[in-house]
């Protein structure tokens, strides 16, 4: 009797071990199998390829800005005046919500290049045209929920948590940039 019990107990243990291993292998296997489906929803190769674009800056006069479309988003190219540069550089870092030096946000001080998408919920701030509302800090103003950005594209007031993003770019000529 005792022997029989022992054997059936052993069998039970073996069975639960087999169950456990089978289920874990199946679970791990199927989570690997799911990945291609999930990843298929990520940006495809052609969308990624669109991510690189060149722009000519020569016809943007000092004091004005231009909006170009890159990766489906507006990019603000601002030819800053001396005043605007100084304004941006004279701010104490401690006053900023997302502290960042103006020097770290530009390659050349007169050219500020930022993605024109509010870091709150993705609206496009106004301030590109001379007549636009530029907010309290002489940069941009997001009408959706009232975020103010300064002449370096840094958030100064409102619900936006971060500064306007600086995209990856480089100067390929004195007046030509490559975005992406």
């Amino acid at each position, binding site marked *: 009797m005792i022997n029989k019990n022992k054997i059936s107990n052993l069998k039970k243990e073996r069975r639960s071990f087999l169950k456990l291993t089978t289920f874990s292998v199946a679970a791990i296997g199927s989570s690997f199998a799911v990945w291609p489906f*999930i990843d298929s*929803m*990520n*940006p*495809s190769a052609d*969308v990624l390829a669109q*991510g690189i674009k060149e722009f000519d800056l020569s016809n943007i006069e000092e004091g004005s800005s231009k*909006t170009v*479309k890159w*990766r*489906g*988003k*507006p990019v603000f190219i601002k030819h800053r005046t001396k005043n605007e540069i100084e304004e941006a550089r004279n701010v104490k870092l401690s006053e900023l919500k997302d502290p960042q030096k103006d020097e770290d946000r530009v390659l050349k001080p007169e050219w500020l290049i930022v993605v024109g*998408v509010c870091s*709150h*919920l*993705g*609206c*496009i701030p106004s301030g590109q045209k001379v007549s636009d509302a530029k907010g309290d800090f002489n940069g941009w103003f997001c*009408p*959706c*929920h*009232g975020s103010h950005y300064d002449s370096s594209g840094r958030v100064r007031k409102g*619900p936006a*948590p971060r500064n306007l993003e600086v995209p990856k770019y480089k100067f390929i000529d004195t007046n030509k940039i490559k975005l992406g």
Partner: protein
Amino acid sequence: MAKKFKNKTLAWLDYRLPIFSVLKEALVDHPTPRNLNYWWNFGSLAGITLIIMIVSGLMLSMHYVAHVDLAFDSVEHIMRDVNYGWLIRYIHSVGASMFFLIVYIHISRGLYYGSYKSPREVLWWLGIIIFLLMIASAFLGYTLPWGQMSFWGATVITNLFSAIPLVGDSIVTWLWGGFSVDNPTLNRFYSLHFLIPFVIVGIVFLHIVALHKFGSNNPTGIDITLKEESIPFHPYYTIKDLFGLGVFFIIFGIFVFFLPNSLGHPDNYIPADPLVTPEHIVPEWYFLPFYAILRAIPFKLLGVLAMLGSILILFALPWLDTCKVRSCRFRPIYKQFYWIFIVNFFILGWVGSKVPEGHYLIISRICTGYYFIHFLIILPLLGFFEKTLPVPANIFKEHNKKK
């Protein structure tokens, strides 16, 4: 065994495929409390509206093109060139509003008569799941015409996910299939918009299975114990439901034929422009209360959590409400809080349509606070402190008392 069907062919078929006896049980014989009032019409109305949405959506899908360059024009093509296209589109867009109206009333009925209480918790959960799927479906559908509100609504709502710490931005990119709301986004939104209503049909089926396990609740909220308290569903409730359907169709018709755009936003007749944000982004009216909760809170992540929480909290309702008595009829104090809650919800909807500044912001904060206080403090405490009225032994006793 008693013969279920006189018709021999039907009996033969049902013997092999018992779907007909299931239908007969559900739509003809099903014993139903005889005291149901008109608030009980809204379940069947919701079901019929779901069918209307699927049929009209299917007809639209034969003409609609899910591409950023063609979507807006294809909807205009439906409106102008397709035979009765205008009718089908208005049925679909007004129908979405009607669907929400009906389901909001249906949920309020449940709240008033305590239909979420034991043993109907799972029935209640399934209902909330349907509501969540409806929200998803309507949001996705609204992006399809690719107007300004479509585009910017989709942008703002998908950006909510960026509030998630660490992985938020990758999730948003994944949702978009790109770096902004664009063609891949529109395509997948269309796929999902097509799919979700059929998932809803599946959940509705489970909802009804759960319903028929214990039968409908009724205005007194008491369990049905006597045979005479029930009547067969057909013809009594089929007729009552049909009558309600007639009234509903009149209201639906008034909107479809005379006020088709009154429930929507005119900006959606401007083609989507990724470089210009409309001055004031508002969702469809049926999302306004939740939108108000989102914007009431100044921190992005908390706002998103509060908005989600305001719906998810309904899952816990059967346990947050500690009172054993179901119906408001015998809960004089809860009844008052119920109406305060409803008014509060309307105020939330109203501030949701305003720019969140100044006193609108303050109102939205107070109402958001109250919304949660209702569920988390008032309901649990009421169960202990409220003195409920005596509950009748059966539904006839309650009627006699009234007379």
